[in-house]
């Protein structure tokens, strides 16, 4: 079972230093285009999963995350291609527009809870998908947007054309996002999100406004999704509706579940595990969704708090050592909830 003591041995400060060093050196160690492409996608997906993690923190499961990614991607792509704005403007406006859309929609749909919210975000995701297919003036329809330029930065003479150069941009964006979300979870607002997730009723009865907290969290999560979308567009240099289907949203959710939702490392580790999977399962494309389903079930049953729960005890010590990066998992006995004699 999910014994948190098992993984402690190999997550040492030394291991962590290695991991960080690896993150920085990866592009020089792996020169093959295949691996670089995967690493770049991992970083973008980690950013996406991190955004979804903020939404999950309030107890809402969104299946429209790829839809908000699309808003960021199309905004950033069209602003740079059609209006010739610099990448940074497209990136920022893409994120902001996705966040604004989330704020407006969230004020209505966050009234729904549990499976109803989930279903509605599924519908929203399909709506955004159809919109991107059928509004050629905005999105280029089925053809998508071509001719997107690689990212340019004001202090760099050359655009970040190579996959290795892009890697460092994505790494910086992800690091900033992690620092931001870590600060958010540590702040009083983090406490508020946890309160709303665990009991909206009690949260409201002790002075938290659950709706307000959920709308803010949803907007922040989708801000990161918009940023992720922009990075995605300027990485592949081509976007089309099929990049942002409902299945992508499922993937971002899967990353959170496989990695674990209770610490910041979860979505990142999840992205590192899930992103390469399709590449290695190429030969079994037909079985891919089935396999995903199986993985999901196995994790829910045996590792409900994801891979990071294997690392938990030592990770907690590390977390304080790192200036409390992320929220340490709650101190508890490794007893699965169902094995408890009484529920109440």
């Amino acid at each position, binding site marked *: 079972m999910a014994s948190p003591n098992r993984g402690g041995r190999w997550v040492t400060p030394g291991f962590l230093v290695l991991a960080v060093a690896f993150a920085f050196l990866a592009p020089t160690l792996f020169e093959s285009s295949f691996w670089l492409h995967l690493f770049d996608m991992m970083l973008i997906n980690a950013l996406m999963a991190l955004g979804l993690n903020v939404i999950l923190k309030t107890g809402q499961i969104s299946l429209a995350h790829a839809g908000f990614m699309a808003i960021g991607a199309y905004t950033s792509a069209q602003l740079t291609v059609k209006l010739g704005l610099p990448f940074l403007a497209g990136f920022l406006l893409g994120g902001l527009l996705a966040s604004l859309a989330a704020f407006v929609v969230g004020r209505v749909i966050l009234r729904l809870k549990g499976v109803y919210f989930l279903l509605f975000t599924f519908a929203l995701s399909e709506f955004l998908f159809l919109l991107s297919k059928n509004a050629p003036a905005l999105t280029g329809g089925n053809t998508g947007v071509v001719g997107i330029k690689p990212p340019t930065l004001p202090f760099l003479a050359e655009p970040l054309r190579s996959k290795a150069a892009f890697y460092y941009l994505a790494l910086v964006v992800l690091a900033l996002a992690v620092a931001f979300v870590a*600060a958010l979870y540590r702040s*009083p607002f983090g*406490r*508020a999100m*946890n309160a709303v997730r665990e009991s909206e009723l009690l*949260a409201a*009865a*002790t002075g938290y406004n659950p709706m307000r907290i959920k709308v803010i969290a949803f907007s922040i999560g989708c801000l990161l999704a918009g940023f992720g979308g922009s990075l995605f567009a300027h990485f592949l240099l081509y976007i089309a509706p099929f990049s942002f289907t409902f299945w992508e949203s499922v993937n971002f959710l899967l990353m959170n579940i496989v990695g674990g939702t209770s610490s910041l490392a979860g979505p990142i580790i999840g992205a590192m595990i899930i992103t390469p999977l399709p590449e290695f399962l190429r030969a079994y494309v037909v079985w891919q969704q089935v396999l995903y389903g199986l993985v999901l079930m196995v994790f829910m049953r045996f590792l409900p708090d994801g891979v990071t729960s294997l690392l938990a005890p030592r990770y907690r010590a590390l977390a304080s050592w790192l200036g409390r990066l992320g929220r340490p998992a*709650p*101190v508890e006995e490794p007893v699965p909830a169902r094995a408890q004699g009484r529920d109440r």
Partner: protein
Amino acid sequence: MLEARGLSKQFGGLHAVDGLSLTVDEGSIVGLIGPNGAGKTTVFNLVTGQLRPSAGEVHFKGRRITGTPPYDLVKLGLVRTFQSMVLYSESSVLENVLRGCAVRSRVGFWRGLAGSRQATREDEKVRERALELLHFVELAAARDELARNLPYGHQRALGVAIGLATEPELLMLDEPVAGMNPEETAHMARLIRRVNARGTTIVVVEHDMSFVMQLCREIVVMNYGKKIAEGPPDRIRNDPAVVAAYLGVDEDAQA
């Protein structure tokens, strides 16, 4: 301190509460009792903002609060506890109380995010206050336990501590001793008196007659959505309408 006038609530054709008036004086312990289905919990939900009344008004500290959502009432000082086990059950006992304290904290979103020195200082103060409250409800030893692992009586005490953390002026307790054994009940009665002694006004909705008779100086009895009696315990005990509501009317005696 609290005044309800002509409070009514209909669910379809059912008059759950029908023209109820209620006054709670500052510093008192008021009991609201009645047989099953009398409308006590509905009154409770109307006053604490969970439900909107069909008619009537509620005033708190001279201010009209009809229809104000619960989270705003908390800021005004009107706080409720829950009947069933509503806690942050997957969090530590201390964390439960800390979340209750948050409403009185003055750290804004951005300052909290930046982790400013003010935020850190506030954090320490809040922690101290939470621990103090845990001492007060005699749960300090269990501060690191998960709330769901506490024994039943302690869970109810934690519920009170979370309520107190919001610094209420009026604390409304929904059946605080439901399902408790006599020992736990006596313990809860002592706790409520101590809360009251700290200057918090208290309203108790309760089934347990003897508990309310012992605890409250002022009792309101409801039946079928209406107030049928009101007064100190001695008067209530001998009130024929109350006796009839609880024991049924003796038809032979009426004949």
